[in-house]
């Protein structure tokens, strides 16, 4: 089977996500699809999987043009898409999951359990997987879950399987198991698309690569001709000269220091943020940076190692203590973690200071209003009135309100996780200004971001994380996208 995509174009509103992309794949090949966040990988594969419709272009299977109105049609044509969030029912057994939605029945209309078990066994044996078909899926490790998804695709007689970041939540031995499985399928003539950020893995498992950048296919070839550094360069393209906003600072005293922090999602991380410094922390999906700082903030997994604030050791047991220590935290995913949709802007922007401005439990409403007005001016939050519901504000203004609640507590150290996520360009610049101003006033800031551009612009130096460890630190002239990408993809290790 040979798949060809030609001139695929797709826009979302004014945003051109794919600009005439060509892509092809033959049976028996593993092709890695590479690209930064927002390069168009998912869009391209969603078109192939029937989830999205393209604006222009064509898809050919063995030279025959096809079009998919939905995932079912795509699957019927032999293309299976395994999404990053697996679609398995944890409380059913392996064989029940394999036959979910297409259960075999006896003539009497009851489930034909013996036949389903037998066919499941046959399928897994064919894939050389030793797995009890009666096992509950919940108890299986992540690699087997991935394998069951693949087996399900195979039972639907898929000849092309798209795997979206299949290794992002797997440990090394689990990754090996999935790779072995992928090689077996390749031997059986199945074509695989492997979407990944981890270039070291890509060079090991894939036969070919295809790199998307800003909606265009910028490079394709055999992985035997390219090493990880070359691929990282393709992903980033030419280094964009970015004007760094942060000035060189003279060394001052340490505010937030971490010593060999180790938890479930991060290993042996140390750093030291000084007063007035903005430390960038970046990496790709599954790098563990959010988990790390959530733990430091007292809301994540337990860790070993030591944290110091102004030289004194501390460990937060819950987030309430963070206020007293003067540590602020702006979470990622504003909608889920940041805003409280049943409260107005004023309350969303004041919740952190309530304990501080109340007497006998009663909130001093005048003081609340004063503090909020002060922040609204300082952060240039656009509101008709403070009692507007938070959900009626634009993304950028919502984010500023979330920031405002912490600023009113006058924190010593701020942890900002993806602070410009989902805000427009203008608001983005304003948020950068706010962050820089806070640093000027002497706060120690950790800026977590997946955008290398943002890190380069705002931070004086940055840690690049890979799979839970610090892959390297960049500063000065080394703060370039290419170097960051090289470290973040594990190519530097």
């Amino acid at each position, binding site marked *: 089977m040979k798949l060809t995509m030609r001139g695929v174009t797709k826009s979302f509103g004014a945003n051109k996500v794919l600009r005439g992309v060509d892509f092809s794949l033959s049976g028996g090949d593993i092709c890695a699809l590479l690209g930064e966040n927002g390069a168009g990988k998912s869009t391209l594969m969603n078109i192939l999987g029937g989830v999205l419709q393209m604006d222009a272009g064509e898809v050919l299977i063995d030279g025959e043009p096809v079009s998919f109105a939905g995932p079912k049609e795509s699957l019927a044509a032999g293309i299976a898409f395994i999404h990053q969030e697996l679609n398995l029912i944890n409380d059913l057994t392996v064989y029940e999951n394999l036959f979910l939605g297409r259960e075999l029945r006896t003539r009497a209309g009851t489930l034909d359990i013996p036949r389903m078990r037998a066919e499941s066994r046959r399928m897994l044996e064919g894939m050389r997987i030793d797995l009890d078909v009666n096992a509950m899926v919940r108890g299986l490790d992540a690699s087997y879950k991935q394998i069951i998804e693949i087996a399900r695709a195979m039972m639907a007689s898929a000849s092309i399987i798209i795997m979206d970041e299949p290794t992002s939540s797997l440990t090394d031995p689990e990754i090996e198991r999935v790779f072995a499985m992928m090689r077996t399928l390749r031997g059986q003539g199945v074509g695989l698309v492997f979407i990944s950020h981890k270039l070291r893995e890509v060079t090991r498992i894939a036969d070919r690569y295809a790199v998307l950048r800003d909606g265009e296919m910028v490079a394709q070839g055999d992985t035997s001709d390219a090493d990880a550094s070359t691929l990282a360069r393709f992903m980033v393209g030419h280094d964009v000269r970015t004007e760094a906003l942060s000035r060189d600072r003279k060394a001052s005293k340490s505010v937030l220091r971490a010593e060999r922090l180790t938890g479930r999602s991060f290993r042996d991380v140390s750093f030291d943020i000084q007063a007035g410094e903005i430390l960038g922390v970046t990496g790709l999906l599954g790098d563990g940076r959010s988990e790390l700082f959530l733990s430091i903030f007292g*809301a994540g997994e337990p860790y070993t190692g030591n944290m110091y604030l102004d030289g004194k050791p501390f460990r937060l047991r819950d*987030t309430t203590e963070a206020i007293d220590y003067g540590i602020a935290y702006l*979470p990622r995913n504003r909608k*889920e973690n940041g805003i*409280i949709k*049943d*409260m107005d802007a004023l309350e969303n922007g004041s919740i*952190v200071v*309530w304990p501080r401005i109340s007497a006998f*439990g009663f909130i001093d409403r005048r003081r609340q209003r004063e503090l909020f007005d002060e922040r609204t001016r300082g952060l240039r939050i656009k509101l008709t009135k403070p009692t507007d519901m938070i959900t009626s504000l634009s993304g950028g203004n919502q984010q500023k309100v979330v920031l405002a609640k912490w600023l009113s507590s006058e924190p010593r150290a701020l942890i900002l996780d993806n602070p410009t996520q989902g805000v427009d360009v203008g608001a983005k610049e304003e948020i950068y200004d706010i962050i820089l101003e806070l640093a000027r006033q002497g706060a120690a800031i950790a800026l977590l971001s997946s955008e290398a551009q943002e890190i380069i612009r705002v931070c004086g130096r940055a840690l690049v994380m890979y799979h839970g460890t610090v892959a390297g630190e960049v500063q000065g002239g080394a703060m370039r996208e290419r170097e960051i990408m090289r470290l973040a993809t594990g190519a530097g290790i």
Partner: protein
Amino acid sequence: MIGWFKRRWSGSPLFSTGAALIVMIILQTLALGFDFSSFGDWLGRWAMNWLNILRNNAGIGIIALGMTFVIISGGIDLAVGSTLVAVGALVMALIDTGPRGVLLNMGITGVPAYAIGIIAGIAAGGALGEATGLLVTKGKLPPFIATLGTMKICRSVTQHFTQGYTPAVPKPFLQIASFKIGGLLIMPVLYWIALAAVFYVISKRTTFGRHVIAVGSNERAARLSGVNVQRVKRMVYMLIGVMAAASAILQVSRIGSMDYANAGSGNEMDAISAVIVGGTSMSGGRGFVLGTVLGTLIIAVMNNLLNLLGVPPFLREAFKGVIVIGAVLLQKREATS
């Protein structure tokens, strides 16, 4: 007129509840009839009927106040009826003037005994609530399951230890509920109003009250804003325990006895109904103390109306069901419109 009505209808969540209550009151007034000798006579009857409604529902109304906070926080409490019975039994055992009276045998009688009885009752209610809170927070049990368990435990233990025991409640204790003002038996209503005012102020003006809303609306965001989510949840269950205890003391002082098998049973569902009819969202984060008071009244007035119309008692519960379902359907439409 209709336009204005509609604008207000979609504008304020309490408006629709209030409007529903007014419709109920009009129907009830019509059902009461005008067949009286004079206007004064009619007004007297009407007012007495109302006083009865309020007095009979003060107990549920007080529990529903606590239930409002629990539901806003995203939880539920099924154990209020059993807490009521347990506290009632405890208080009566303490103040009993019969041979088994605990305080009497310790030589404490009169007002000190009543004070100890009330304080112990409130404390016991709070402690039972706190136990539920710990099961929900530390034990990470779903509130439905935690309180289903404590509901069974409280009633069963109470019934076991009160077998064949009929305490005598001293006459002065009855004054708590039966003290007359201007010849009217109005004390339970006053307690209800006072507690409703307290709950209203807590929910609007205090850190705790606003934290309850934050936790119910987005627990994760609340936690990441430094809210002690576990403490808020424990407080909420403790408060409803105290409200159940208050309701128990009220009942003991009104009736002077308690049927341990049946007292308070069904209170949890009545309280939940009142809260829901009052516009509080079952999924948490959105709720109104005043709405709960209106919701309690809607159900109460409807009961009274059915009574006046001579609807057989067994059928009345069905109307309650219709009201709850109808209220939530209406609120859903308002939310999407």
